[in-house]
């Protein structure tokens, strides 16, 4: 009896030791796994920019960014049309998407009955799941013909259909982040506003929305990052012609679609390929800047 109890105690002790070792090793394993993400992002920046920088062996920096002449066969690599296309498209799509998305976020967080709120949240989840090529497909089969019908002199391809498609694609980002931030505004502000005699709508726009602003802005910027990087849907409707345009209805090109169009036909290590990697580097730098802005905005929570 005594003996078995003793051996049981030894077993127990051994078990405790094993679980303690396991406990400590798991902690370091998890840390190692988290560091993996940092290693991945650093190597992405390193490999992509290393190839991109090489383009300046053959092309001048100012020429690369400010020339609008893109003719790889003649050794001319000016990406003005590309970054201009990206810039206009991103701003337009973010504006359209934010307008609709923020209004919808206000509705589901403050006015909607519970059932409708669930319905819209579910719809947002489905929106996230729709593949970008399917958005592009709809753009190609519905929006491009529609634009052609309304403006018969245009081909239908261009920034306008791309911006409409993109603004729908970024809706989920804007809605979910804004909704989250509006819902988490302290109830006391709202009640104080009612007590002062404000209506529900007045309260929403002059109390709740300003308090939720950092979150809403974060949502808009993250949506902008998504619009900036979207490739396939835009490629299918923008026309992919490297020309600087002054109309939303003429075919043009963006940084992302330029990479997709040309990468397949370049030889790895050539100036052409390096130019495409430089365009990718540019996208990478802009998206990192956007993330840094989001972090600054979020740290500035308004203290009323």
């Amino acid at each position, binding site marked *: 009896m005594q003996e078995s109890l003793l051996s049981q105690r030894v077993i127990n002790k051994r078990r405790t030791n094993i*679980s*303690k070792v*396991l*406990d400590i090793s*798991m902690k370091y*394993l*998890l*840390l190692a796994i*988290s560091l*993996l*993400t940092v290693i*991945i*992002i*650093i190597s*992405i920046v390193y*490999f*992509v920019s290393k190839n991109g920088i090489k383009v300046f062996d053959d092309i001048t920096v100012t020429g690369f960014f400010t020339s609008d002449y893109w003719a790889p066969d003649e050794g001319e690599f000016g990406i003005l049309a590309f970054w201009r296309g990206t810039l206009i498209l991103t701003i337009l799509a973010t504006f359209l998407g934010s307008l609709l998305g923020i*209004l*919808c976020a*206000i*509705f*589901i967080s403050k*006015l*909607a009955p519970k059932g409708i709120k669930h319905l*819209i949240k579910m*719809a947002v*989840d*489905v*929106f*996230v*799941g*729709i*593949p*970008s*090529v*399917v958005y*592009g*497909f*709809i753009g*190609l*089969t*519905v929006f491009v013909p529609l634009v052609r019908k309304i403006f018969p002199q245009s081909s239908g391809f261009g920034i306008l259909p791309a911006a409409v498609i993109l603004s*729908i694609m970024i809706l989920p980002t804007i*809605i979910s982040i804004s909704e989250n931030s509006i819902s988490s505004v302290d109830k006391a502000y709202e009640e104080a506003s009612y007590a002062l005699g404000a*209506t*529900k*709508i*007045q309260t929403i726009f002059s109390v709740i929305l300003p308090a939720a602003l950092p979150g809403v802005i974060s949502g808009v910027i993250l949506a902008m990052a998504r619009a900036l*990087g*979207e*490739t*396939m849907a835009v490629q*299918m409707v923008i026309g992919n012609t490297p020309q600087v345009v002054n109309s939303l209805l003429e075919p043009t090109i963006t940084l992302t679609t330029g*990479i*997709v169009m040309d990468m397949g036909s370049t030889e790895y290590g050539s100036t052409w390929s390096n130019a495409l990697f430089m365009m990718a580097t540019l*996208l*990478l730098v802009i*998206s990192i800047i956007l*993330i840094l802005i989001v*972090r600054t905005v979020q740290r500035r929570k308004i203290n009323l």
Partner: protein
Amino acid sequence: MKRKVIDNVVAFILYLSSAIVLGILIWFIYTILKQGLSALSFNFIFGRPLEMEAGGGIGPELFNTFYILILSLIVTIPIGLGTGIYFAEYAKNGLGTRIIRLGVETLASLPSIVLGLFGMIVFVIGMKMGFSIIGGALTLSIINIPVIVSVTETAFKEVNPTYKEASLALGTTKWQMIYSIMLPCAFPKILNGINLAIGRAIGESAILIFTAGTNVSRSFPDFNILSTGETLSVHLWYVKAIGLIPDADKIAAGSAAVLILIILIINILMKVMSYKMQNKFFGKSKVI
């Protein structure tokens, strides 16, 4: 009086905006299914694609889509879960943690084409995998890490802290507490994140063009991870934007319908699973 009118007008605009959002979605799904359902047939879904003539199918593409999805999840889920758990349970708010967080956030909004180029340099060219299923799956796994990380972290933080204290008071180690109490409690919510990751993996194409390629293997089904692996999304893009087949419209419409159906079915399945698990752990009273 004037105040009331303004109120009603603004409220109406808010209602309208949400109706538009819902309307767009319903109209989207309707348009895709209307165009695509007529193209669906046994031969289309399981048949082989054709390069030049009409009547090709999407069998190998469908197979590759799921093969790459599963391979990528095998890599994504442990890394995402691990990092999420680290953030929720171990990380202190020091410089190191801030750097890791910045890394995850940067990864989250990285343009997918940039990641595609990275995969091309590292896996396809550097490790000599060529355009392959494994090259595509590895690159794809990177893009989903941030989703799983943030969902895991939020889910862990939402678990009632008394569970944690009770477990530790019974003498468990921290890891035992995480593994046997926190993980099961957080799992229904983590499942929602996996759902999002699956949707993204099925729909992603920019990453896969230069890593998995735009061709399918000669044999079908081909489990060789080094064979080229065009997925359904890439196929849809390829036939519509570049390809030469005469019935590209029909193939693209059918592929779009299949993609949407897969996404909807997986969405519903995962929601049901998450709901059932929630009931099992917390009883019926809790809402999802």
